[in-house]
């Protein structure tokens, strides 16, 4: 492990929790299934992957925006009759890294032996974020954005991206280089929903949704589920998969909302980035893989800067020059990301990182993959985890 370790004492520095199993359903545009059924399948898949039975699980957690299934119901479907810990957090992609950190912390604190983190959604056929199905009367702080119709994520991220373009001179082509690189990565991934090649001409000809963002800057909404099974060190000897160790986790949940945030050229990663490197004693250059949360291309741009992979304004060139793909500095989203594999709210990034660190990613395997950063969230709020193939 490189870097000058300024390792903080306590939480998650015992490095005693590993990903023991990963599971998922197929990703589709219309599952025809319930979110509970898909959650159960993904959890069962993760348990089978680890070679553990359902009775091993004593903690379950998920995050959702009123579109998932509750842990106790999913557990019952799995054949589990009782849980020591059942948690459901009302949150978006900003919570993914901390969901896994929480599940690990429950193990380290001795509350649980094995915890499942899952996310299940009919994100395309069911509850589509920002979809309007009736008259809208908007409460809370967003009531002031109701009159202009400034109410959905593509608009918020576009507003921030415009600011970055103004301050750093970044361009559509810079965002396009991100979309194209990730689409190339999705090509050989038979789990991805968008695999057809994307050229810069295609990207630039894509229709604008909220200018400056085009359709190719936006995530691919899908139906599906992913589950990650975490176990403590005492159980690692019992699993049949290769353990992938959680090295550290850091988050930064900004409280300003989208309009009062002081500098939209930067996201939460300006704080979470230094925090995770200080906490783990690692650096961006130690990572072979970066699964960067990519609800929009601009999220990748701003967080690549925040986590220290690039100087401000250099992310487009970093991608265009091949430094974010195989043979470059770090492979960003080898599965195609949320943009091309599909939007399982970022939990599929953790699946991919584990698959890669085990050396089981097949044709898209990143050679020598030992460390991965996986980020979660965008705008004011998010976090990241670092995983290692080698026990730290």
């Amino acid at each position, binding site marked *: 492990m490189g870097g000058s370790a300024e390792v903080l004492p306590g939480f998650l520095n015992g490095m005693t929790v590993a990903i023991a199993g990963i599971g998922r359903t197929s990703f589709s545009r219309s599952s025809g299934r319930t979110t509970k059924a898909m959650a159960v399948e993904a959890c069962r898949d993760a348990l089978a992957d680890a070679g553990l039975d359902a009775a091993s699980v004593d903690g379950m957690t998920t995050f959702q925006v009123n579109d998932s299934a509750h842990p106790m119901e999913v557990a019952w479907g799995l054949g589990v009759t009782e849980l020591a810990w059942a948690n459901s957090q009302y949150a978006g992609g900003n919570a993914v890294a901390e969901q896994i950190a929480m599940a690990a912390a429950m193990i380290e604190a001795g509350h649980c032996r094995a915890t499942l983190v899952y996310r299940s959604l009919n994100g395309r056929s069911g509850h589509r974020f920002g979809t309007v199905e009736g008259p809208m009367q908007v409460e809370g702080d967003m009531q002031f954005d*109701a*009159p*202009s*119709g400034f109410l959905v994520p593509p608009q918020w991220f576009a507003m921030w991206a415009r600011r970055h373009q103004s301050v750093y001179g970044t361009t559509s082509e810079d965002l396009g280089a991100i979309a194209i690189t990730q689409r190339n990565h999705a090509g050989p991934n038979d789990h991805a929903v968008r695999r057809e090649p994307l050229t810069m001409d295609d990207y630039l000809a894509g229709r604008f*949704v*909220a200018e400056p963002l085009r359709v190719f800057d936006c995530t691919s909404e899908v139906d599906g589920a992913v589950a990650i099974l975490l176990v403590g060190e005492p159980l690692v000897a019992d699993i049949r998969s290769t353990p992938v160790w959680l090295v550290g986790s850091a988050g930064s949940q900004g409280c300003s909302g989208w*309009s009062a945030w*002081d500098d939209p050229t930067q996201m939460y990663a300006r704080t979470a980035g230094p925090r995770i490197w200080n906490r783990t004693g690692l650096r961006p250059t130690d990572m072979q893989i970066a699964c960067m949360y990519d609800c929009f291309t601009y999220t990748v741009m701003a967080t690549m800067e925040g986590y220290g992979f690039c100087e401000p304004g250099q992310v487009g060139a970093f991608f265009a020059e091949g430094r974010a793909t195989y043979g470059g500095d770090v492979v960003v989203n080898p599965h195609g990301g949320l943009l091309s594999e599909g939007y399982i709210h970022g939990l599929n990034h953790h699946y991919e990182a584990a698959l890669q660190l085990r050396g089981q990613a097949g044709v898209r395997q990143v050679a020598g993959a030992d460390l991965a950063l996986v980020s979660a969230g965008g705008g004011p709020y998010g976090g990241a985890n670092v995983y290692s193939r080698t026990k730290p």
Partner: protein
Amino acid sequence: MTGPESRLEPPIPLPDVVSAPFWNWTASGVLALARCADCRQWDHPPQERCRFCGGPIVFEPVSGRGTIFSFIVNRRQFVPGHPPPRVIALVELEEQAGLRLTGLVGAEPERVTIGSAVVASLAPVGASGYMAPVFDLA
């Protein structure tokens, strides 16, 4: 694809006890924002007490003058009542650094840039009876 149905009315605010003065002021034709009676800082969206010092809040009229901090152009319809194209700006008011409002801009997208000076007026929100700030290039 379930899109925003054109027959639906545009989104409207649901005032609460803290925000009601804002909407009462706009209904009377005045743009007024929350301000601390003690430390005199402006704050938007409003809080029940000042988020800087915990002091009592009063609503006071603002100039409506500001600059475009950032803006987008809706090229598809996201919500009812807002057919594209539509320019939405995040406007920083001259009263205080960081004091920002979102609002529609009454100008062709090509004429709008970050840093443009704008001035607010009040316009009806559909047929709801609410009035909300919109911006014109100054």
